[in-house]
């Protein structure tokens, strides 16, 4: 279990250091899990999760069975917590009023296959409470937004996986929700469409929306955000930016690649630093680089900076090798990082 940047809580736009008077003036967080546990019979799916989100894009990662889907369903009021409380802007997530603020794109893609995509989205707009005219306008707008306007008259049965994904995202956007919960939103979408949707997500975040995205495609998630919630065995194992989480992983030496003119000379100097536990000089023919492993990243980088200044070294490139989501997930989950 990795300690998080606060007691299992990270609020991205609200300073946690705010005093009691200041806190009372703040609106309730957009999404708040308070000591939430969820049991399925005798199986504990979620264990005392506390989490607050207020804006931007957050990636939700973890191995299968870690509790990601349960967390998303609780956030969307599809499930009720066994213990604790889930609120959306202070409203109980189970209450239908809360869902006016939440858009949900589930991972399943089962619809009434005889309906056209346009009709499906229109019906969903009607379920949001819009009049016929407004439902039609919104349907056209969201279909345009996900690039499906021209193809929406075909029956859902004939849609490809990617088209289904777009329709699912379209229906989640209908009521312009403040919080958008997306479960594997990019699965099955071609590279061009993927880039379009990534841009859409970034635009939404830029407009102040909060996006909670669960995905197994960590590389794609990295393009969107570096703020992640890592789930393991029903608990939030870590929350924060990748850098914050990596800094807390003191037990795992950080790997850094440094390109310099004299790699052997640098290797000698590095071995003198107490934080460095291993140095490897890349073979001749490469750019001339050293790959080192160091404990206590903060102390190491401070010492390394001092070393560079004292020895007047010319560092051409410095690259942390294991600050990717994949590597960090591997450390946190104690495996390969595969999800």
């Amino acid at each position, binding site marked *: 279990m990795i300690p998080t940047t606060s007691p299992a809580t990270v609020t991205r736009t609200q300073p946690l250091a705010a005093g009691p008077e200041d806190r009372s003036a703040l609106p309730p967080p957009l999404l708040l899990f308070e000591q939430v546990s969820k049991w399925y019979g005798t199986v504990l799916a979620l264990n005392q999760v506390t989490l607050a989100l207020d804006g931007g894009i957050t990636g939700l990662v973890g191995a299968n069975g870690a509790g990601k889907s349960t967390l998303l369903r609780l956030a969307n009021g599809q499930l009720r917590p066994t213990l604790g409380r889930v609120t959306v802007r202070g409203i109980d997530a189970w209450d239908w009023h809360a869902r006016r603020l939440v858009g949900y794109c589930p991972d*399943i893609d089962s619809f009434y296959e005889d309906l056209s995509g346009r009709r499906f989205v229109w019906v969903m707009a009607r379920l*949001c409470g819009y009049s016929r005219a407004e439902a039609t306008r919104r349907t056209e*707008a969201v279909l345009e937004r996900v690039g499906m306007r021209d193809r929406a008259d075909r029956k859902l049965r004939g849609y490809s996986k990617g088209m289904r994904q777009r329709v699912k995202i379209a229906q989640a956007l209908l009521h312009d929700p403040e919080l958008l919960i997306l479960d594997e939103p990019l699965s099955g979408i071609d590279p061009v469409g993927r880039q379009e949707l990534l841009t859409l997500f970034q635009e939404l975040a830029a407009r102040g929306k909060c996006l909670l995205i669960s995905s197994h495609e960590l590389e794609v998630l990295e393009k969107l955000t570096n703020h992640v919630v890592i789930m393991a065995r029903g608990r939030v194992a870590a929350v924060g930016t990748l850098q914050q989480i990596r800094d807390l992983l003191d037990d795992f030496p950080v790997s850094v690649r440094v390109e310099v003119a004299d790699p052997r000379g640098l290797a000698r100097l590095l071995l003198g630093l107490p934080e460095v536990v291993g140095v490897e000089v890349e073979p001749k023919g490469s750019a001339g680089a050293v790959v080192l492993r160091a404990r206590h990243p903060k102390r190491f980088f401070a010492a390394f900076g001092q070393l560079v200044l004292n020895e007047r070294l010319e560092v051409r490139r410095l690259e942390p090798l294991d600050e990717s989501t994949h590597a960090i997930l591997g450390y946190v989950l104690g495996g390969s990082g595969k999800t």
Partner: protein
Amino acid sequence: MAARTDDLLRYRPWRGQPRGPLHAAVALARMSLRVLLRQRLLWGLFGLGLLVFSFFFYAQYLVVWITNQLGTETVRFAGIPVTVTNLTKFLDRLNLNGTAHTFGNFIWFQGYVLVIVLALAGSVLVGNDFAHGSLPYYLSKPIGRRHYLLGKCLAVGTLINVFVTVPAVVLWVEAGLLFDWETYYLNNVDLLLGVFGYGTVLTVTLSLLVVATAIWVRRTVPMVMVWMGIFAFLRMLGEQLARELETPAWRLLDLWNSLYLCGLWCLGVDHETIRPVPQPRFWQAWLAVAGVSVACLLYLRRRIQAVEIVQ
């Protein structure tokens, strides 16, 4: 909650107020019916229902016409002289004379088609949502689980009334036109109200039963089997037990019979005229129907509270 001006969708700001979840329940019912109407089998069953209705409609006309126009005449039927009223003797059991039993009998026979329709409707409208996992789409919208169930019950209720109540009202109108319409309509308003009452009992009980069983078994074939169990097996069992043990209360196992008794009570029928005999008392039938409805409600409530919608 006030509607916000949204710039996400890039069109003119909307200043309206989203309607409540009851409106969404109606929208859900309309969509469900639209989906159901795409089923060819349902159209076949509609045709069958229309056939039952047409039989009652034209037979009622025929009986009245023969009685009024040819009542005393004799016709040769296969070379044998027969009084024309004897030709329609076989229809006497159906009481095609615009009385309470006419409507009771019509709804009884229409029930054979209706239960098949409802088995299909249950699996298509509700079972599919659970079996294929499309329920999260509905429940992610600003509606409660109660509104989802209400929407589905509305769809099933509409179907029941299209099959039963509306044709029965047409039969009532026809009966008025066949007899002295001024006196018939004025004297038999209670029959019309009885038809509506019968329709309401069927709508409430059967819609709850359909939704509950569809949530329970989900797929068409098991749904039909459960339905057959309720409306065919329990009926035979109830009849047999009532006859063998000479206890009419055993007929309460037959839900359709209990609904029939409740309907006849609404139509103001004398208990002694109900066939087959013996029959349980009206209050017993009401108790049985209420028991089924409450059991369905409790089951649905339990599902709503648990709502482990994804297994």
